[in-house]
């Protein structure tokens, strides 16, 4: 199976995966450099996980670049001098990327309000790079449109002004609506992929989805959408992909520091089909289409207040912390949940006991372990996940 990309370019799944893999593993951000070089005056804005309004960056003609640390391919030389040993790894590898000039290609950096680590990292950034644009994106924890909505609109207006200044392009409403439509499409196709994977996880293994999604960190959204579409066409064409009767699991806890690819492979080899996850949650933070009519800032505000993904850093006013996970298990016919959280991640690890309680109430099996983005030894995880996978399969057969 292959697909044709304009000008007679024929692409196979292997080609696509090679491309996605190299985009997601490239700690030199070559794709961003190349994108900038394609036209005079182009700029790029980096952002940490999870949610930032990428539509505003896009509408100003700049490229939004997701920064999720250095993964397992970056040697930390200077980063450790900035962080105590009991702090997660993503800030130290991100600092390392910056100090090794790999992030010089960025013209600004956004730090969303996800935890104290990212928050304080924003201050460190502004001290290390006093001449660069740094912005802490304070998302509201009050979901009343007249209160939290008003505050968030004001924050969005600040970003709109800042991006216009940085790019030299005023962001008018039409441009912003058009960018919203572009991201709606991207999120739509990602939702399609998640649905398709849940239906037939043997066709869309997590070990591939990982690269396909992660490529979205550095690609313009239109290109990423095209890549997702190609993948949705190409993967089912592989004739050797058959249902192997593995256990269906939901992965939770990976919304910020990303697991190494080896960890995902390990889970698959241990007999798991990943049918849902909170991997790179920022890409699909808004879970419904954002309105493309009317005032576009109001539309973004409404989407944030009413259609955001649930995550550990977001207040749950109704007190039902575990509902999203229970819903996901039901919707995806999962047989169990694997909590995989970064070591020292307060949000994920403090959330976990509440999620565990919710699962226990429903009798949903779960297991948990921690990782760092550069974890290289998977023997224990493989053993644990294998045992878990076997036990839940027995459980569902019984």
């Amino acid at each position, binding site marked *: 199976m292959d697909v044709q990309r304009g000008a007679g370019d024929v692409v196979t799944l292997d080609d696509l995966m090679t491309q996605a893999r190299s985009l997601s593993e490239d700690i030199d951000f070559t794709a961003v450099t190349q994108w900038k070089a394609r036209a005079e005056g182009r700029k790029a804005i980096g952002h940490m996980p999870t949610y930032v309004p990428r539509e505003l960056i896009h509408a100003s003609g700049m490229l939004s670049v997701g920064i999720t640390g250095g993964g397992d391919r970056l040697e930390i030389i200077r980063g450790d001098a900035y*962080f*105590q040993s009991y702090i997660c790894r993503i800030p130290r590898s991100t600092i390392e990327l910056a100090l090794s000039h790999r992030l010089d290609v960025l013209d600004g950096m956004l730090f969303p309000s996800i*935890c*104290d*680590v990212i928050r304080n990292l924003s201050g460190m950034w502004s*001290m290390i790079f006093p001449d660069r644009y740094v912005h802490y994106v304070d998302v509201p*924890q009050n979901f009343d449109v007249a209160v939290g909505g008003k505050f968030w609109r004001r924050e969005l207006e600040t970003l709109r002004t800042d991006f216009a200044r940085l790019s030299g392009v005023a962001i008018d409403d039409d441009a912003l609506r058009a960018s919203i439509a572009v991201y709606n499409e991207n999120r739509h196709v990602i939702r399609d992929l998640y649905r398709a994977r849940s239906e037939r996880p043997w066709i869309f293994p997590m070990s591939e989805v990982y690269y396909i999604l992660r490529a979205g960190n550095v690609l313009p959204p239109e290109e990423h959408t095209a890549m997702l579409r190609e993948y949705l066409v190409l993967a089912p064409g592989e004739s050797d992909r058959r249902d192997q009767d593995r256990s269906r699991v939901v992965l939770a806890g990976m919304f910020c520091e990303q697991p190494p690819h080896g960890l995902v492979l390990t889970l698959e080899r241990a007999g798991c089909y990943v049918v849902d996850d909170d991997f790179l949650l920022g890409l699909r933070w808004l879970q419904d289409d954002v309105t493309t009519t009317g005032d576009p800032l109001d539309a973004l505000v409404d989407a944030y207040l009413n259609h955001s993904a649930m995550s550990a*850093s977001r207040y749950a006013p109704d007190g039902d912390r575990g509902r999203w996970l229970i819903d996901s298990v039901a919707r995806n016919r999962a047989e169990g949940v694997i909590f995989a959280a970064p070591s020292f991640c307060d949000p994920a*690890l*403090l959330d976990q006991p509440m999620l565990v309680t919710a699962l226990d109430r429903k009798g949903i099996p779960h297991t948990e372990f921690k990782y760092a983005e550069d974890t290289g030894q998977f023997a224990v995880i493989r053993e644990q996940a294998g045992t878990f996978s076997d036990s839940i399969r027995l459980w569902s057969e019984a």
Partner: protein
Amino acid sequence: MSAVRKEDSMLLQKQMMSDHYDRLASAHDEGRKVVYTFVPGNLNELVRSFGLLPVLPEINALQSGLRKKSGEYIAEAEKNGHSEDVCTYVKCDIGMLKKGNIGPTGTQLPKPDLLLLSYTGCFTFLKWFELLREEYGDVPVAMLHVPYQANGRIEPHQRDYVVQQMRTEVIPKLEQVSGRAYDEDRLREMLRLSARAEDDLVWTLESAKRTPSPIDAYFGGVHYIGPIFSAFRGTQGAVDYYTALRAEVQERLDAGQGPVTPEGPMGTEKYRLVVEGPPNWTSFREFWKMFYDEGAVFVASTYTKVGGLYDRGFRHDPDHPLETLADYCLGCYTNLGLPTRVDLLEQYINDYNADGFLVNSVKSCNSFSVGQLMMLRQLEERTGVPGVFIENDLVDPRYFSAANIKNRIESYLQMLDQKRGKAA
């Protein structure tokens, strides 16, 4: 005379605390309602203006540390599925709850009638009260999201946001729980009392600019902030406490005396230090002794600003009751961007004529700790004053390594001596 006076303020505080916990123990029997909330950004005057009693879980946790109970409580929480990696204040509190919720004075703490989630300067607060909400069943929560001062200044829309939340979220819930209507005059009256106590607190903290300093602004400082950071801001009790404290310090100042330590008056002041970060509570006295034995006194600290940055001029303003509470919440130390924190420390080092500074980095607290290594380097560069970096924890005794810490402090102070020797 000074020893007697010292006891005055200490005893006063002790009495205030024990009365408060007694009132809490009988609160529900006597029909009084209880609000749990956090120290940074606490709305004590507002809560009390409704006749409600505040409980501050952080204070309970640190008290558990001082009473050597925290290790057991943390173990209990970990046994119940809480990760070893996360903030130990939370685990200490959850463990205490699981073990019967006996407060620092030996009486049982009442269940909350409302969790007032003042979300200021720390993301863990959110998880902490979500966990408590689960533990206590369907206790209502009032969420007050306080935006971060990344740029070190309060933007008008941030203030509006906080005030609006007070009007639409906090006050209605306080009304509901208390069965009373919001009484702004009462609130103003309490804010007036707050400002008076704040004046005396600032005077006390700033007395450390004198040489020798009459106070230790860290190990003594944590006592001085007790009433105002916890349940008493806005009460006559707090005003009286700070009047008494000021009189005592004035007396030591007049007599040219240094701080009073647990072992009596400190010897000659040899080193003046500034400190960033919270102290360790499980070995509090042992930690303090490492300094006073060497003649090292802390002249300024950032930890004593987590519940309000009064020494930079902020006072609760009765003429703008909700706005002033909003400014208070926004301005607490851990809600300030790192560059502002470095500026503040730099000013302390200069204004208090410090010889050195300590960064006491606690494992629990990402809010404080992330960036401290960089703060250390920045401060050394900017002031030319050398700093020392120590790692331990607030209430987890497993992370207080006495011998290592002592060694580190001793060699640091020796280094300061050598530096002085060279300068002389």
